[in-house]
């Protein structure tokens, strides 16, 4: 079972890779939507990639209003088997 820190790291790795930003430029407390400047299509793509990577279902409303990567990681963590 992953720890919340491991999950957060994997979310940051995935975001850096998918949005082609430097991994070092992303921090767990960064605002997910603002930092990446993502639009609605990119948000859905990210959601799908997170679901594939972690092998979970992550309903859209779990991403809605997420303030930072760590919070998002927490919501993913709650669905890990």
């Amino acid at each position, binding site marked *: 079972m992953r720890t919340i820190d491991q999950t957060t790291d994997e979310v940051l790795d995935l975001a850096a890779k998918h949005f082609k930003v430097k991994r070092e430029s992303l921090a767990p407390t960064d605002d997910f*939507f603002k930092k990446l400047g*993502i*639009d*609605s*299509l*990119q*948000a*859905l*793509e990210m*959601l*799908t990639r997170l*679901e*594939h990577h972690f092998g979970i*279902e992550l*309903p*859209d*409303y779990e*991403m*809605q209003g997420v303030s930072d990567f760590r919070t998002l990681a927490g919501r993913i963590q709650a669905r890990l088997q």
Partner: protein
Amino acid sequence: MVELELHRAPGNEIGLEMLEELEQFTNELDTFSREASALIIHSSLPAIFSAGADLRELYRGALPLDAAARVAGIREFLHRIHAVLNALDDTPLTTIAAVHGVCFGGGFELALTCDLIIADKMARFCFPELRLGLIPGFGGIPRLRRDLGNAVVRDLLLTGRSINAQKASGVGLVSQLAAEGEALRLARATAEQVIKFDRTTSAAAKRFLKPIPFEELRREIDLFCELSTKPAVMEGLRRFVESTDALPYLP
């Protein structure tokens, strides 16, 4: 085989122009079904099969009208799109939706008319209509209920969440999963297979298996029109049209 390519930027939204083009296409379905055995519906836009009904057009069109005229306009549009979707559902051609990216609302309802859905692993399916105080209006509930268990329909409808292709495959909505960018290729390979069968036999099997739920479809139009008179609907449409949120389809 025949291919129907959706290509209306930005999101293959189904508004009046798309409706007219679909009507032209379905007017030719009888001719196609004499000459072909399979139909593939796909999108040539990146990351989108169809975002659904054109809500911006709906909002702008409805704004200057009084309530009675709004409902009359909506009812007329629904009757026309239902005629198109019923024709696609009912055609003797074996129909395949090759879906990638966003397949939401009316776009999802278009895919649901097809006999098979082949989906890219990045596809997402969603019925977000409840956020506007509405239900799907293009035959979504009757067709989804015909094809899947009621519990799946309730989950999609009552939460408004989107599901990915893998989940959609798990519940029996998607017949084949494709790698990224490969849905159309797989759809064509499948069409090559289905056209090997005798056309009249395939058509007879389809007629036997896939009844069109006309009565429920009629009731859906009535319910949609009834719900559309609520003031919250125009407010929901305004919020959507003006939204800059990354998840604008959520309430």
